[in-house]
């Protein structure tokens, strides 16, 4: 992976913030932005390119005039899709975004056939599944952003409760990137200390609830989805892949018997490296967590069923 070339499809707030974060960290050699709205990718690419003057490493920022310019990328980040509005559920987005994703994915297959795809469009797990079906690539190359973001939101909630330990709290969230996600605050540590020594059951329940609503809370204030958290979480995943750092990150990934499931895409801890997903980390789940995880998988399968019903895969 010597090119360190990253394509970003969709230069809205999430895509542009991911590009900005990557550029400020100096992680890639080149970032190519594409957006369906004319001028958006061009304007943002220039703005970010000028900001790189103060970054630790140079990054080349360019705008693609057509999907054909997202060429020979090592990683393509798909953020395309319409954003979630205040009263819109993730499911409402399903059919609109699935159609957008299909055409974008076909472009990626044509122009960056060796890329690893980081899928960000919502509903996340179902879109990641759709990309997997459309490309028919090995599962290690299709990775959905989920736990990296939800985990950061959970760590924030733990920090808010404790008033210390910012930036040193574990981020373990599994399941879908939606209402049925399974945050596991009881499993993580703050620095050296298990959270179970710092918080009680009621506080854990509050943290789980607020983590689940983490995205919706921001939508409520902004009228549109958050993008700083997602942008940073994407950059974290891209960095792990480009640097082959073998970091453990929860991501939405196609399961093939792991955790007892097949033919579904859902968030579990994985090892990220140069091949994308290097390994799926198998945790022991207790009975209660297994039940929650099943509910989460069920909700994703419902989404997949909607796609099938509408003849999406035909």
């Amino acid at each position, binding site marked *: 992976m010597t090119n360190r070339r990253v394509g970003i499809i969709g230069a809205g707030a999430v895509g542009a913030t991911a590009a900005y974060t990557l550029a400020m960290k100096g992680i890639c050699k080149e970032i190519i932005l594409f957006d369906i709205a004319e001028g958006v990718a061009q304007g943002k690419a220039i703005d970010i390119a000028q900001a790189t003057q103060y970054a630790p490493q140079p990054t080349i920022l360019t705008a693609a005039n057509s999907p054909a310019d997202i060429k020979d990328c090592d990683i393509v980040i798909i953020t395309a899709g319409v954003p979630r509005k205040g009263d819109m559920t993730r499911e409402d987005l399903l059919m609109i975004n699935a159609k957008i994703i299909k055409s974008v994915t076909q472009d990626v297959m044509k122009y960056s056939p060796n890329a690893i795809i980081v899928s960000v469009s919502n509903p996340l797990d179902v879109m990641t599944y759709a990309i997997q079906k459309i490309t028919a690539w090995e599962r290690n190359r299709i990775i959905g952003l989920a736990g990296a973001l939800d985990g950061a939101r959970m760590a924030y909630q733990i920090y808010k409760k404790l008033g210390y330990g910012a930036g040193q709290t574990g981020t373990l969230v599994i399941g879908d990137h939606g209402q049925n996600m399974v945050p596991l605050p009881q499993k*993580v540590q703050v*620095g*050296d200390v298990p959270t179970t020594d710092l918080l009680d059951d009621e506080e854990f329940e509050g943290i789980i609830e607020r983590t689940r609503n983490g995205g919706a809370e921001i939508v409520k204030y902004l009228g549109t989805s958050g993008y700083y958290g997602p942008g940073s979480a994407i950059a974290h995943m891209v960095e792990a892949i480009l640097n082959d750092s*073998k*970091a453990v990150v929860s991501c939405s990934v196609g399961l093939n018997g792991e955790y007892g499931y097949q033919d579904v895409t859902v968030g579990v801890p994985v090892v990220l490296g140069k091949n994308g997903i290097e390994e799926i980390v198998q945790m022991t789940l207790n009975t209660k967590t297994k039940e929650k995880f099943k509910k989460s998988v069920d909700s994703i399968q419902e989404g997949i069923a909607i796609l099938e019903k509408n003849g999406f895969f035909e």
Partner: protein
Amino acid sequence: MAKGKKVTVIGTGNFGSTVAFILAMNGTCHNVILRGRNYDVTKGKALDMSQAANAARQHTIVKAAKGPEDMAESDVVVITAGAPRTPGMSRDDLLTMNAGIVKMYAKEIKEYAPDSVVIVVSNPLDVMTYVALKYTEFPRERVLGMAGILDAARMAHFIYEKLEYGAGQIRATVMGGHGDTMVPLPKFTTVAGVPIEDLLDSEEIGEIVQKTRNGGAEIVNLLGNGSAYYAPAKSTTVMVDAILKDTNQIHSCAIMLKDDYGYSDIVSGVPVMIGAGGAEEVINMTLKNLQVKKFKNSVASVQEMVDKLHELKFFDDLV
């Protein structure tokens, strides 16, 4: 506006020099004062580091101290002075030699940098922290020993060697004295939240615990002439940064216990929350029976050394 931060590093051996160099590269403080026995050598190192800071586009200036008065207004003072451990020498052999050195510097810190937070890294660590506390007469939150961060880093490295992933994300916990009786806690150890017990079997974990205990000695034996300093120096600067940036993060450090974990008037390694004022809070974790027993052994080994110093009338000059 707050003034620029100042850190004094006492001792210009490999350990002290590496601490000062990391600080200069990080740019977390504006002034680093190096105190060494030989002024010219110290000044040479300080110049070299100041020039490196410019290469790194950092603002940190490293200066050599002419005398103890140059420590004035330090936010943090790091005591690395003391004889290093050489092959065959146990940490305990160092006791009387280093206690005298730490006592001398502690008295100077009390006089010239009375508002600083002191980080002790001289060995045997827990006893030296005890000595520094007694002779600075600072409140306990301002005298800390560097131990758990290093031991946990070593444990995390050995876990990484087994797993071959998760480097930098392994949260290992090591309590107790920074010596042969340290208490690594694999039950509290996770890789990005995944319990280590889901990833390694008990035999592998046992091996890692043993390797962690021997982590320092392994390097001493390999080097043949002195002990490790890269990981120790980095672990020390983690504490310095936490204080200067007032991060309120949790790190395991040696500190005087005051009804913590059932002990008082003895120094041992426990998790503390570090901020601008030092260890602003001691975190009391729930330990299992076996861990309670191991921690007891660890505290007892530190107590033995303190008792030995009492026997030798080391503390008799305390008012």
